[in-house]
């Protein structure tokens, strides 16, 4: 099969998978108990009749198939719906939180992938050395501590204790920018945003780098035991050629898949980190929408997440096709 046919086939399957994913999300989320009007539960001032009236206004008393039809029709028109609770178009709600998530997770993602892959290769190449042992210990230590706890520790240390100890600077305990910084001009605001970004980014990136390195290290260690590596060495290739030309290219294939799959996860956000640092990302927004049954918002977010995950996978598979021609023919 040629590259064009290969891509067309992948596109078709991605479209089918996307349709199935959004259909499942729609029906699953609508059949679980509860509805958006439950937010008024136990509140004596909002009686059941008023809650019914809201459901009717939101079209939630229509049969489920009819709601699904409306959902699909709107989706094909590029309309992700209107958030019941935020009283805004879903695209606007997501649009407000997405830049912050992309800034935090996107930056972290790039740093993790680039540093993680090379660090993983570096320690795998030195397997059994003190450096490798140190890496394994660090990885296990960091992973043994819940990420939110690390976040809280960072807040205590770099936001509070540094001030208590009289250090010249500190990092903020919460938020993505100082209130009123929008009036400061571009450069001071940029500095302010980076200042707020520092702690959550550090916590996420340390964990991410260690994770990606660990993954890469494992792959590479396996590859290094393969016969063709021995063959390459027997051929007299130098160690750099063995590592980067033979071992690295093969070890990176699963990493590429993981990178592709992680793109969708960017939108889902890092709920814990966003919560600990009160960072205004999509993770927190989505979590709240989920527990409050804001159907259009949840569906809209899942559509974007599904779409991006599939897109990431598609790109990964196409890259596969380039990296390893055997996959195309298979």
């Amino acid at each position, binding site marked *: 099969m040629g590259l064009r046919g290969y891509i067309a086939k992948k596109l078709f399957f991605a479209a089918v998978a996307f349709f199935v994913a959004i259909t499942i999300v729609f029906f699953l989320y609508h059949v*679980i*108990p*509860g509805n958006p009007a*439950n*937010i*008024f*539960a*136990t*509140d*004596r*001032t*909002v*009686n*059941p*009749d*008023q*809650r*019914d009236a*809201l459901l009717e*206004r939101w079209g939630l008393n229509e049969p489920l198939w009819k709601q699904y039809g409306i959902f699909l029709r709107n989706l094909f028109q590029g309309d992700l719906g209107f*958030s019941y*609770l*935020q*009283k*805004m178009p879903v695209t606007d*709600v997501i649009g*407000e*939180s997405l830049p912050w998530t992309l800034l935090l997770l996107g930056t972290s993602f790039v740093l993790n992938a680039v540093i993680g892959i090379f660090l993983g290769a570096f320690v795998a190449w030195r397997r059994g050395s003190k450096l490798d042992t140190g890496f394994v210990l660090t990885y296990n230590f960091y992973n043994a501590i819940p990420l939110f706890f690390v976040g*809280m520790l960072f*807040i*205590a240390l770099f*936001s*509070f204790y540094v*001030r*208590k100890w009289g250090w*010249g*600077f*500190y990092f*903020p*305990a*919460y*938020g*993505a*920018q*100082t*209130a*009123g910084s*929008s009036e400061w001009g571009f450069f001071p605001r940029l500095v*302010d945003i980076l*200042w707020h970004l520092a702690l959550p980014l550090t916590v996420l990136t340390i964990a991410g780098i260690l994770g990606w390195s660990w993954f890469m290290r494992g792959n590479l260690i396996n590859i290094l035991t393969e016969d063709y590596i021995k063959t390459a060495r027997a051929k007299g290739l130098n160690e750099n050629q063995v590592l980067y030309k033979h071992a690295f290219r093969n070890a990176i294939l699963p990493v590429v898949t993981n990178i592709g799959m992680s793109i969708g996860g960017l939108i889902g956000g890092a709920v814990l980190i966003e*919560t*600990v*640092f*009160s960072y*205004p*990302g999509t993770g*927190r*927004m989505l979590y*709240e929408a989920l*527990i409050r049954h804001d159907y259009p918002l949840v569906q809209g977010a899942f559509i974007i997440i599904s779409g991006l995950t599939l897109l990431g996978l598609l790109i990964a598979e196409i890259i596969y096709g380039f990296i390893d021609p055997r996959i195309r023919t298979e």
Partner: protein
Amino acid sequence: MNKKLLVSATFLTLILIGMSPSLMVWGQEPIIGGILHTPLSADAHALNPFSWTTTYEAYIIWHIYDPLVRMDLENQAFACIAESWSHSTDYSEWTFVIKDDVYWHDGKKLTVDDVFWTYNMLWNDTNVPRRSWLFDEITDLQIVDNTIVVSFGWGPKPADVLYDLATTLIVPEHIWDGIDLYTFANDEPIGSGPFKFVEWERAQFFRLETHDQYQFPIYVDGKTIPIISEVEAQFYALAGGDIETMANPPPELEDAAEFYNSSVHTALNDYWVYLGMNQRRYPNNVTEFRQAVSYGIDRDEIVEIIKYGRGAVMPASCNLPWGTYYNPSAKTYPYNITKTIEMLDALGWTDTNADDIREDGLGQDLEFDVIVSADAQESVDTVKFIKTYLEPAGIKVNVVPIIWDVLWQTVGGLGHIDQDYDYPGKYDYDWAVLGWVGFWSDFHPSSFYWLLSADRWWGSDDVNIPGWNSSVRWEVTDLCNDTLYSTDDAVIEANIDLIQELVAEDLPYVPLQVNGGTYLYKTDEYKGWELGPTDGPDNYFTWLSIQLIKPPEAGPGFLALGAIITLVVSVAFVRYRRRK
């Protein structure tokens, strides 16, 4: 050249350090002004006063809008937009005189037409979620000069009118006229309240500035309300000087508050938790059994251990244990497991098969599943305690945490689904732990009417969460109606006293505890905190009185950091150039 660069860098550094507010304020005299920082733990959704969904939204909205009347810290009426009010002798006609010096945040004057427009809109649209039940009772609404006259078909009492109707927030007609009330996000609200909306960065912060034409003086320049999700982060922000108040810190941190110039205030909330024993099922419908269970629960310990001492035991009378209408002589159920055992013995319910579980009159084990919201860890812990308490009495309790929506649907809180009042799973539970909020039973004579009357929502056959159906229910319903329509204070008080005694004896609900709040507030920067028995320090009356006692110390420390970085980079650059 290099020397010049170094001098320039040092000069720039000094300028940047000089710009840092944390350093600029040294040596200045205390001033009046400043921005008060009071955090929220979650963001608002929309700032619509008629459809807000969470207390976070209500909190912001009540900064921006004013009603005719607010409630003060002692729950007395405080004149806000209304200058005064009066009523006819039979309470059926109420007249509110509107103040002449109230302005909207856009500079326009608030008139009686705005009040009329707001009331008229709510009177005519019965589906508005945030709407007093008394709008349904209005028969006529008129403007007479600068007054608004509200007529009812009967005579609602001052508590009903002042606290339920007159606390309706007033919106400007020139903005709200013609908009769709249900989809209006109102994300740039214009009100007449003490603070003017400036900016809302979603999930980050609100910025408010003082309404310069406000009818009462305000001494701070404004408020910033950051959204800080975690209480630990809030505490570090408070200790570090970024915020001035916070609610419910972890107990271990609360003890450390005094080291960071913070004071502690405790208050009780109009939010009580109960054990609902589904009386549609035997043996829950046996009053003596409910009483025996009630004696077997150590509420003091629940408050002390699970709630960290924040709160109080909720009386069996379902009336908050303070305020005008509290009847302390109503029956109580102090922890007494021996009495529980004696009462069960008296019922003849013994353990006949030696499995440590008694059998009821039908020979079934006294074993009950208690559904509880899995999100509320304290409630789950409460059920675990109840399980332990009742075990020696031969009652087996199974803890069943489930998600809130399933719980609410199961106990019948939805009323109906698609007009199906008998939807699958409705009332399919043994016991449940739930709470009620905002019934104002401490000072409002209609609280029992809302909660227990068979004619009203929560006590009606459509909902009736505990399935209360004894003859006492109808007696209480009659008393509630009598109280609602009575204007004789003595009759009202006697009725409410009797209702409490009947309820405490019959136990439709088995109340557990009243929740309480602990608040930290900084005392080194501001003075004038107003504290109430049911309010935290961040309340309307604090906003009117709070003043700075010294300039703020916290500033954007990144400027100092930026200065240091600039210096380091410059020195490194100079060294590099030299080496080159």
